[in-house]
Structures are given as structure tokens and as C-alpha cells.
């Protein structure tokens, strides 16, 4: 058979495309459950982390997560968890960073005046600069932070983190002013919403 003929070319192309698409479909089918499971675990860990609930393994996190409820408070959809008579809330936040959407969870006390913690699930910031928002030291700054008028201030100190719980300030990332500012805007928009919805004004 003439391998350069039109007919052969069309048939060959169709067959080889089919073969490789089949290979991809197989690879996808074999891993789809695992990928979904990974995403699910990541989401659970993020929500628990934001609420400051501690766990020591993925299994433990999944077990604790069974007690997390999704609730509506003043039109805001929140995750809620009860720990020793104490109610904890977490909310998903998202907004535009310098290069793309930043998404994660922020935990808050029932009166909306103190954050419990914060996580970053997704971002496209510059690796090594703005991308450092996914590092622990940056996120740990939001642990038990007192809000000032429902907000947190992004400052530029030494870029090593501000862990004073009552300062109302978060230390931004050195060399990543754009990301730090966008992040402050995103998180404050969500915090103010929470502060108002949870009645922080009257507290």
C-alpha cells in the first residue's frame, strides 16, 4: 500500500489519534478518583486549619470534618464547627491577586471580631515573591488576630511576620507589594462582610 497516498494518510491519522486519545482517557480514568480524593482532603484540611482545629493526619481531618456543618448567616454561606461549647466559623474567600485568582478560607469567631486562622488554597502569584502567601509564616499571622473596625492592616515591616494577636496588623511580603496590597483588599472585603453579618458592630 502506498504510504504517501491521501487515503492512507487520513486513515493513519485517524487511527493514531484514536489510539493516543484512548491512552489519555485510560490514564484519566485510572487516576480520577485519586485526584478527586486529593482535592477533597485539601479542602477539608484548609477549612479545619482556618478554624484553628488541629488534626494529625488526613484520616483524622476527614473524621473531624464530619462534624462541620454548612450554615447560612445573614445571607453568608459559612462552615461551622462546635468545639467544647464554642462555635467556630470559616468562610471561603476569593479575589484577584496580581496574576490571577487567590482563593482560600478564613476562620472567624462567632462575634466576628477575631480571625481564627487563614489558608491559601489557590493562587498564581510570582513564585518566590507574591507566591510566598502560601507559606506558613504568612498564614500563621492570621491566627487569633483581633480585627480593628472589622479590618486588618497590611504593613511593611521586616517581612518576617507579625504575630502580635492584638496588633490588628499583618506584615506584608518584602518585594511583593502588589500581592500584599491585593491580598489585603480581598481579605478585608470578606472580613468586613463577616464583621457586619456576625454583629461585630454591637459587640
Amino acid at each position, binding site marked *: 500500500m502506498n504510504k504517501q497516498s491521501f487515503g492512507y494518510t487520513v486513515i493513519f491519522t485517524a487511527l493514531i489519534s484514536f489510539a493516543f486519545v484512548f491512552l489519555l482517557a485510560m490514564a484519566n480514568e485510572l487516576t480520577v478518583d485519586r*485526584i478527586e480524593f486529593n482535592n477533597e482532603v485539601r479542602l477539608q484540611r484548609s477549612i479545619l486549619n482556618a478554624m484553628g482545629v488541629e488534626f494529625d493526619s488526613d484520616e483524622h481531618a476527614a473524621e473531624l470534618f464530619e462534624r462541620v456543618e454548612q450554615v447560612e448567616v445573614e445571607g453568608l454561606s459559612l462552615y461551622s464547627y462546635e468545639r467544647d461549647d464554642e462555635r467556630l466559623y470559616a468562610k471561603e474567600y476569593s479575589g484577584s491577586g496580581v496574576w490571577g485568582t487567590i482563593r482560600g478560607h478564613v476562620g472567624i469567631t462567632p462575634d466576628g471580631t477575631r480571625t481564627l486562622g487563614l489558608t491559601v488554597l489557590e493562587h498564581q502569584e*510570582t*513564585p518566590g*515573591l507574591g507566591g510566598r502567601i502560601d507559606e506558613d509564616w504568612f498564614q500563621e499571622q492570621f491566627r487569633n488576630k483581633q480585627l480593628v473596625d472589622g479590618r486588618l492592616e497590611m504593613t511593611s515591616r521586616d517581612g518576617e511576620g507579625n504575630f502580635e494577636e492584638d496588633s490588628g496588623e499583618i506584615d506584608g511580603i518584602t518585594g511583593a507589594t502588589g500581592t500584599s496590597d491585593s491580598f489585603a483588599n480581598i481579605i478585608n472585603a470578606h472580613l468586613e462582610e463577616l464583621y457586619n453579618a456576625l454583629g461585630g458592630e454591637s459587640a
Partner: protein
Amino acid sequence: MSSVAAPGPILKENLWTNNPIFMQVLGICSALAVTNLLANTMIMTLAVVGVMGMTNLTVALIKSLIPRKVRMMVQTLIIASYVIVVDIILRAYVPDISRELGPYVGLIITNCIIMGRAEAFAQSNPPLISMWDGVTSAFGYMGVLLSIALIRELLGFGSLFGYQIMPEAFEPWIIMVMPPSAFFVLGIIIWIGKAIMEREGAPA
């Protein structure tokens, strides 16, 4: 291009005398994009090793069946398929690194070295030696990228593979974290490589 078909000379050629990056100056885009942290560079270049080996093997196996007119299209199809398989594997088994690399794994498809070797070597050589050629070319690429990443991570973060190496007092060079620094480092590496080669008297 000289056509040697023995494993030894191919190894030397791909790692050194005809290194894809500093002799052929191919694959520059990823040399700039994924070289600010050694760990990411390592995973990325290992992915390239796998994709190149498999692509060259496959192209060499079916080369007699491929009509000339659609040769390039078929090569691209093969490369793209393997890259997506690698991407899926990374996402399933090392989700954290997969997230860090983001779109760059997918961009392996456009790495000119892979297509270059498929076209220049696998199209006209037997399967196993083609696979060897693909793997060693990718090692040549890996060597240069890791050298760039070594310098960039050390000066940009003061660490290697995430472990702090430089003393506390060391002020990180922000420029080393940004893509432009890879141009300087790459330029210096090409310069050094060529200088050594000329001294050895190899035709540069």
C-alpha cells in the same frame, strides 16, 4: 549533525559537545521559567526525561508507518499525549509539587528539544538507541537547568532544595528570584561551557 549511533558517543554528545541548551540553545523558555527552586526544577526535568525517552521510543517504533506529510503532526500528538499522562500522574501522586509547577508541565509540549530529537534522531534510528538518545538529551537539559537553579536558589533564597545554607546575615538577591536573572546565569554558563570546549580543542 554528525550521526553516531553508539551509546557512548551519544551520551557524550548529548551531555556535552552537542548539549541541547548551551550548544543548540533550545528549550530556553523553560530554562528561564522553572529554575528558581531546585526541587521544582528537578521534578520538571525528570518529567522531560520521561517524556523524551517515551517519545523517541514511540516515534522510532512507528516511523515506517508514518506518512511524510503528517510526520510533524504525529510527533506533536505523541509528545502531547505523554506530557498529559505525566501531568495526570503528578496531580494524582505529588499534588503539592504539581500545584507549584502549575502550567509549566503542560508547556513541556512546546519544548523544542523534544521535537528536535524526535525529528533529527528517532525518525532515522532504531527504537532502543532512540530512547537512549532522548533520555541523554534530557539529561543534558537537566544538567544545565539544575546548574542555573543551584545558583538562583542559593543567591535568591539562600537555600538549596529548601534547606537554608547561607548565614542569617545573608541578604537574598531578589533579582535571582525573577526570570531575567536566568538570562544572566544562562549566558554565563554558555560562556564557561564554550570556553572549556575551545580549550579542549573541540570544534565549537
